[in-house]
């Protein structure tokens, strides 16, 4: 069983995560857009403003979570799409590796930036 889960054979887990993250993203993305384009105009964003928001723990947490889910959702989406194009064997493993690294890097960098903004680091 475990073996089946660890490989990609059963699509159920990534499929489910894709949907769960999507549901979460609906809320956060809408909030994000609204906040940074309507409440605070994007052209008026400043470092001070950003770090002021980021200093709130709730906001920081939301943003980090936003980043993580979006990264997973996006990267997993790309991977699934590529699989649908008939990616198999070595190529499939390579793509999986590259996407995983890119995803992790993005998440790491993003989280780091967020922490810096909030002044924690």
């Amino acid at each position: 069983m475990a073996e089946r889960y660890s490989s990609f054979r059963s699509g159920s887990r990534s499929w489910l995560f894709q949907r769960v993250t999507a549901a979460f993203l609906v809320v956060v993305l809408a909030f994000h857009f609204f906040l940074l384009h309507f409440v605070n105009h994007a052209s008026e964003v400043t470092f001070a403003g950003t770090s002021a928001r980021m200093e709130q723990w709730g906001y920081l947490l939301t943003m980090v979570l936003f980043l993580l889910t979006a990264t997973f959702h996006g990267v997993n989406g790309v991977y699934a799409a590529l699989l649908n194009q008939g990616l198999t064997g070595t190529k499939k493993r390579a793509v999986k590796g590259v996407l995983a690294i890119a995803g992790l890097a993005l998440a790491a960098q993003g989280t780091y930036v967020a922490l810096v903004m909030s002044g924690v680091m």
Partner: protein
Amino acid sequence: MSQSYNRGLVEDFGRWREFTAGMWAWILHKFTGWVLVGYLFTHIAVLSTALPASNAASGVIAAETDVYTTTLQGLESLALVRVLEVGLLAVAVFHILNGVRLLFVDLGVGLEAQDKSFYASLVVTAAIVLASVPTFLEGVF
């Protein structure tokens, strides 16, 4: 003896004319999804200017002349960027709305109306985007 013929290109003739709601939704969702991931990467890259900025003197930050602020505002002052932002909004709104539609489809809710809900996503996307244009383009033109 018997051989068969793979029509390759020919076989898809006529498909576009009959490309149905579900297929367009699929194509558009794919496209918008990819754009969004692309944006996510650039977005984080741009935001990374916060790293050097955080080391800047507090005066610089207060004066809003740190790298972060200047980069962002510099970008925002370009008309092209604003237009792209509208595009991004369109892409995101469509992806959200159609994503919600897909979530319903996954739950097996309202499958009979799947084509209608797709058209609805398009219409609503257009409405939201048009309504947001003034806010998005404010001050550049």
